[in-house]
Each structure stands twice: as structure tokens, then as C-alpha cells.
């Protein structure tokens, strides 16, 4: 069963390539930036977050730029190992965080699908099935055989979305602007999202757009300065703001 559990989750980024000494005085007043034991400047991106996201929940992460939304998505996706606390994510994760989404810009769309199949350890029929499914869903047609660096942003979104959702992840992590494609594609994308959510999976979406929140989500977690400042049902959290 899909589940996300975080307890005291903390992520700290060291700035290795800044001179700690010169910055130290200026930063000491700031609670999120501090210097650590070895005199490095460290920014605490996520501070002691505790939450539990269960089956069927559709969570919106809201908050100003730099609040830690994308870092939280990446951490849930297994990119950053926590500096403190505990994190448990059950279920296959599909991540749509940056447009590139781990694709090779010089490879064609089809090659990228095949790479993803290899990444997932798929072979033979499963691999061909993935290629066929992503090709059909993305609707890229002949553009599948062109290097993706020539794609328009919208085409890249389509391929990334099709790749991330094709193998039915149980936990989908998403940055809002993946919901920005042309209208025909959006209908299909939204249908697929609805289907996923209907199948009792988890959706976590970082967004500024309150219509996205109201339309898609059942719960809102508000982040500010790397901390959770509100967590609850959509209307309750949005009304409080």
C-alpha cells in the first residue's frame, strides 16, 4: 500500500564553493543559513518535518519560492538522503520535478524511452510495451525519432509525463507546471491523473495555483522557510492564509 512517512525529516545543503569566513558575519543573523562544525555555510532546506501521507491522498505543497517544495519532492523521490530524521516511502515512485526529468538531451525520444526501460530493468516484451505505450500517450508521432533537445517545452512535458506515469507509479511527485500543456493533451493527462488517484495512489504536487489545488487535492501542506506551517484539508488551510 502506498505510504509516505516522515519524522523529523531534515535536509541541509552545504555551500561548498562559498568562502565561509567572509559570509559568516552576514549570515549569522539568519536562522536557515548557519556555519557548521567544519566552518562551512549550510542552508537548512527542510527543518524537522513530520507528516504522514496515506493511500488515496492528494497533497498540494504550497508556499513562497524557496520554501522547500522542490527539495521536499526530490527527497521523497530518493534523490537526497536526509541529514536528520526518518523517511519511509512505500510504493513505486514516479517523479516529474524538472522538465529534463533525467532524460538525455542528445538522444531521441524513442531512445529516452528505451533508456528508461533499461533503468527500470525491463527487457523484451515489457520494454516494447513501454515504448509503445509512451509513444501512444505522448502523441509525438514522428518527433519520437528526433533528439529531444529540439523539442518544444510542450513536447518535452508530454514525453516526461507519459514516461513518469506509464508504468503506473503508486506515488506521483509533481511540480505544478507539468499541468501546462496544450488543451488536448491536458485532457488526457488529467484523465490519467484522475485514474491514478482513483486507484488509491498518492499524488504530491508543488504548486502556486489555487485552482490546481482546489481541483486536484484533498490536503494542503503549507511550507515556509523549510518548515511546515499548516497542514490540513484544502479549504481549512487556504482559508487560514
Amino acid at each position: 500500500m502506498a505510504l509516505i512517512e516522515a519524522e523529523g525529516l531534515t535536509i541541509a545543503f552545504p555551500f561548498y564553493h562559498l568562502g565561509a569566513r567572509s559570509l559568516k558575519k552576514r549570515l549569522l543573523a539568519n536562522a536557515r543559513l548557519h556555519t557548521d562544525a567544519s566552518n562551512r555555510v549550510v542552508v537548512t532546506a527542510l527543518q524537522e518535518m513530520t507528516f504522514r501521507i496515506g493511500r488515496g491522498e492528494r497533497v498540494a505543497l504550497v508556499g513562497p519560492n524557496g520554501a522547500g517544495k522542490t527539495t521536499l519532492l526530490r527527497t521523497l523521490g530518493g534523490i537526497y538522503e536526509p541529514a536528520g530524521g526518518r523517511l519511509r516511502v512505500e510504493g513505486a515512485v514516479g517523479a516529474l520535478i524538472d522538465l529534463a526529468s533525467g532524460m538525455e538531451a542528445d538522444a531521441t525520444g524513442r531512445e529516452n524511452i528505451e533508456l528508461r526501460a533499461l533503468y527500470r530493468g525491463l527487457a523484451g516484451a515489457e520494454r516494447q510495451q513501454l515504448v509503445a505505450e509512451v509513444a501512444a500517450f505522448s502523441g509525438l508521432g514522428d518527433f519520437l525519432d528526433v533528439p529531444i533537445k529540439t523539442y518544444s517545452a510542450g513536447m518535452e512535458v508530454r514525453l516526461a509525463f507519459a514516461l513518469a506515469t506509464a508504468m503506473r507509479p503508486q506515488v506521483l511527485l509533481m511540480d505544478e507546471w507539468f499541468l501546462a500543456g496544450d488543451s488536448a493533451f491536458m485532457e488526457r493527462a488529467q484523465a490519467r491523473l484522475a485514474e491514478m488517484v482513483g486507484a488509491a495512489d498518492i499524488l504530491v504536487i508543488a504548486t502556486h495555483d489555487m485552482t490546481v489545488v482546489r481541483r486536484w487535492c484533498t490536503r494542503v501542506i503549507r511550507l515556509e522557510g523549510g518548515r511546515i506551517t499548516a497542514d490540513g484539508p484544502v479549504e481549512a488551510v487556504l482559508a487560514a492564509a
Partner: protein
Amino acid sequence: MDGQASGGLAERAMPVLEHDAGRPCRRQRAIADLTTGFARWRLAWALAWLDIRHRYRGSVLGPFWLTISTGAMVAGLGFIYSRLFRVEPADYLPHLAVSLVTWNLISLTVQDATGSLNSAGRMIRQLPMPFTVHALRAVLRNAIVSLHNAPLILAVFLLLGHAPGPEALLLPLGIALILVNAFAATMLLGMLCARFRDIGQIVASVMQFGFFMTPVLWRPSQLSPELQPLLLLNPFYTVLETVRGPLVEGGGPLAAWLAALLYTALLVVAAAAFFVRFRGRIAYWV
């Protein structure tokens, strides 16, 4: 990390990602990284081919330009140095061809290793993937490129009628040793260079220095006998000897083989220790 890597299909056992900063389980995670990474060798192979195709896109001869340039080096240096050293070209050229081709592989691998993780930064920040795959990708692309030089050795041997004896059977062992070193060096340098951006510059100078300090152009026998043991202190010499020995020197000295094994073991231990300790930090570095 292990979560998505161990299966993306819903029907399979549900992958679980678990991190507890209090119990980092660094060794288990490093071992899991290596085993899943090697199990995904097809991915590393496909990415390595992609790199080569991209690097030589639009080029008519592609990696064969390397064959041509190494061939010109062998011919030109063979002509000059056989005179400088007053040796027969027929005697000197097999040594030079094998040495240059092997040095090329070593130097290409080491210099590429410095960027092996930095160049994969985009992917590392997007997709949880064993870091082993990125290292394997770099090793494979350099091995494939270097393989384009191999016909030169064959050509020189055929032209000069040089035939290695039964000691040539040691060659696979020597190549295996180089590949193990290549993987360990790529892991270690990849991590070091992700963390300390100056290392790449240092490595470039070390490799240039190494080229002249190592018997690539000259031969160990040209050193006076009391200096020859000092060569064993040069790891490049010992590893080079495990390939050159079987092909041109009747197997190579036993001491060089033993030293090569020792250096390989040391490099593997250093890379493993560093990997176990800092694997979890790589995503923060690149």
C-alpha cells in the same frame, strides 16, 4: 534509491525507500548500489554508446580519428626515438605501439573519470539511480573508444613479424586488472572531483608528468640496473607492464605484476571506503 531501481511495475513487490539519519546503513547501501548498478549494465552500456555517438556526431571517421592520430604518433615517434635511442625500429616499434595504446586507455580513463559524476549531475538530481551506473558508463565509453586503437598493435606486429609467445595468455589478466583499476579510479575521482573542483586540474598535470616518468616512450632496460627497482614505485608503470609484458616482453617482471596487484588492491580499498562513507552526499555535491 533502492526503491525505484528495484522495480517500477505495480505488479511487482512494492518497492520501499527508507532512510533513517540515525541509522545510515552506509555499507548496505553502498553494496546495494554496486549490485543494482552492475545488474543494470545494459543501461550503462546503452548510455556509453550514446555518449560516443553524440561525441562523434557529424564526424565522418568518428573514433577512428583516434586510430589515425595514434598511428601517426607510433610512426613518427618510432622513427625519431629509434634513432635517438640507437635501437632497431623492428625492435622498438612493438614496444612503442603497445605502450602508447595502453597509455592512451589509462590516460583517457583517468581524465574522463574526473567528470564522470559532474557530467551526470542533471540525471543524478532527477532520477535515483545507482552511482555505479554512472561510473560504469564512463569506463565503458573509454574502453570502447580505446578499442579503436587495438588494430594498430595488430598492424605493427604483422608488419614487423613480431609474434608474442605463450606468455600472451596473460593478456586477459592484464586487461582485467586495468578495467578493475579503471572502475575504482572512476568512482574515486568522480566523487573527489564532484566535491573538490580543483582535483580535475591536478589530475591533468599528474597525467602529463606520468607520461614522461613512465616507460612509455623509453624502456625500463634503458635505466641503469640500480635505478630499475625504483620504477616499481610508479603505479602507472606496473599496470602498464601487465599489458605490455604479455605482448612484447616475455611476460613482464614478476615484481611488476605483484606491485600492480598491490596498487590495484589499494585503489579498490580507497575507492570502496570513500564510496561507503560519502555515497549519500554525492547528490548534494554535483
